């Protein structure tokens, strides 16, 4: 966008609809800034931005220099508003040097040169796949008084994230993948991220549980260690846990597990608790393979999450034990996947996956929303709120807490009431 000083152009305006003859009389020097753009950057001739295009340029062949003159005259002769006089626009190739714009700005007849502002679609409307997200209905998400929590960060330690996914646009405010590729070939981290924070009401895909920001640490390698199973890179994982402490995150999602406890890991979770981070981890999916106790979910300082199916029963794979805090939807959970397939994953964009990995981000997101509602609450209060407001399930037999389902099913409406 180029604006000419009206005073510099006005003396050359003879009529409201400048003719080709009038344009020809305009001194070359007046429009030399536009000529420079054509010669240095290959720009075509200018057009008036607000005023009607002059008759001489409508469908009639005109040299670029003639178009420049006509555009400048028309921009002053017939602006729709005096405040909009003198504006013309010309198209420059992508990457046109900033020095060109600075040189044009230096022309005495020019008062303003700037790129047209970049703006993008902020569509609003129902997310078209929302009807397939049974889990949101099960936790009373539609009726919950959800606070705007964009200032609250959820930390996600996982396989990475496709931060360019349209349903995660603007959500990922931090992504640590040093030493590894930016992509998420497994897709697990992108799926978890979408459950937490897919953009709601953007007329794209699905809705996330919470309108929060995500800080993602990629703690898995891009290829499986044994050709089949992915395991965290130990040092990267431990360092990420330490980094979360000072990241400002209020909630941490860990859709991971293993059977050995670790003093180092436990210490890091203790420090996260002290720093105000509510850590949530998966109970594990090995109920039918011996139902082992899994960490980090089994640490006292971690909220351990089991999975339920759409009928409200414990998912058949979901581990049980006295350390379970509560349950959340974890069977056929629709969420985001990276846009590109990989050697390890054919599905793209969206898919339904099952696991306590999918249940955990429902709770991590809920913890972030509670923290947003009660900024002075620490993890003890947040986790207590999650448990005491959980909905009792028929499988609990009237008990307040069971080893199978914990305190019951996450109830976001009650937790945020």
């Amino acid at each position, binding site marked *: 966008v180029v604006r000419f000083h009206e005073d510099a152009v006005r003396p050359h305006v003879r009529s409201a609809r400048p003719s080709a003859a009038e344009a020809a009389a305009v001194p070359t020097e007046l429009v030399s800034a536009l000529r420079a753009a054509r010669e240095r950057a290959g720009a075509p001739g200018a057009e008036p931005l607000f005023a009607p295009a002059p008759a001489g340029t409508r469908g009639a062949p005109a040299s670029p220099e003639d178009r420049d003159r006509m555009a400048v005259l028309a921009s002053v002769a017939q602006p729709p508003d005096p405040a909009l006089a003198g504006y013309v626009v010309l198209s420059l190739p992508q990457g046109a040097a900033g020095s060109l714009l600075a040189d044009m700005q230096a022309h005495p007849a020019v008062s303003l040169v700037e790129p047209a502002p970049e703006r993008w679609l902020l569509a609003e409307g129902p997310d078209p796949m929302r009807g397939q997200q049974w889990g949101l209905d099960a936790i009373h998400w539609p009726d919950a008084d959800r606070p705007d929590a964009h200032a609250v960060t959820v930390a996600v330690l996982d396989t990475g994230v496709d931060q360019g996914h349209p349903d995660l646009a603007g959500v990922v405010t931090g992504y640590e993948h040093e030493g590894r590729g930016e992509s998420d070939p497994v897709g697990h981290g992108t799926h978890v991220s979408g459950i937490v924070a897919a953009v709601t009401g953007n007329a794209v895909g699905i809705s996330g549980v919470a309108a929060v920001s995500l800080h993602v640490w990629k703690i898995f390698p891009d290829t499986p260690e044994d050709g089949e*199973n992915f395991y965290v890179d*130990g040092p990267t994982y431990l360092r990420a846990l330490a980094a979360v402490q000072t990241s400002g995150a209020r909630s941490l999602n860990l859709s991971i597990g293993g059977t050995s*406890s670790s003093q180092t890991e436990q210490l890091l979770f203790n420090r996260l608790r002290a720093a105000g981070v509510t850590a949530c981890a998966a109970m594990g999916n090995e109920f039918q393979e011996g139902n082992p106790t899994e960490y980090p979910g089994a640490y006292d300082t971690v909220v351990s999450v089991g999975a339920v199916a759409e009928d409200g029963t414990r998912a058949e794979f979901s581990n049980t034990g006295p350390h379970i805090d509560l349950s959340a939807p974890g069977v056929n959970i629709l969420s985001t996947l990276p846009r590109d397939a990989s050697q390890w994953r054919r599905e793209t964009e969206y898919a339904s996956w099952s696991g306590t990995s999918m249940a955990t981000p429902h709770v991590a997101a809920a913890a972030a929303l509670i923290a947003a509602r009660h900024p002075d609450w620490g993890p003890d209060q947040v986790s207590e709120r999650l448990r005491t407001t959980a909905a009792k399930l028929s499988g609990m037999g009237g008990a307040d807490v069971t080893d199978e389902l914990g305190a019951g099913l996450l109830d976001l409406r009650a937790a945020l009431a």
Partner: protein
Amino acid sequence: VVVSFKFRGDAGDRECHEVLDALPGHGARRVDPLAPGTADPELSRLYLAEAGSEDDAERIVSYLSAAPAVEFAERPPTRGLR
């Protein structure tokens, strides 16, 4: 192959440095603080020692576990996707 370990809170600087200096002799290729620059007194006592082999890692764990200045030493936990 990595070993994580933590110095006791009452371990003096000299004791800690003696342990750090001895680690290469037990197979450690490098030793780094787990959270460099941290202001957390607990995290500042955590270290990672990189070993060249499983055998070296076991030797490092054995040495550290016997050192009075060290609270614990262990291999990082195995964690998979759930």
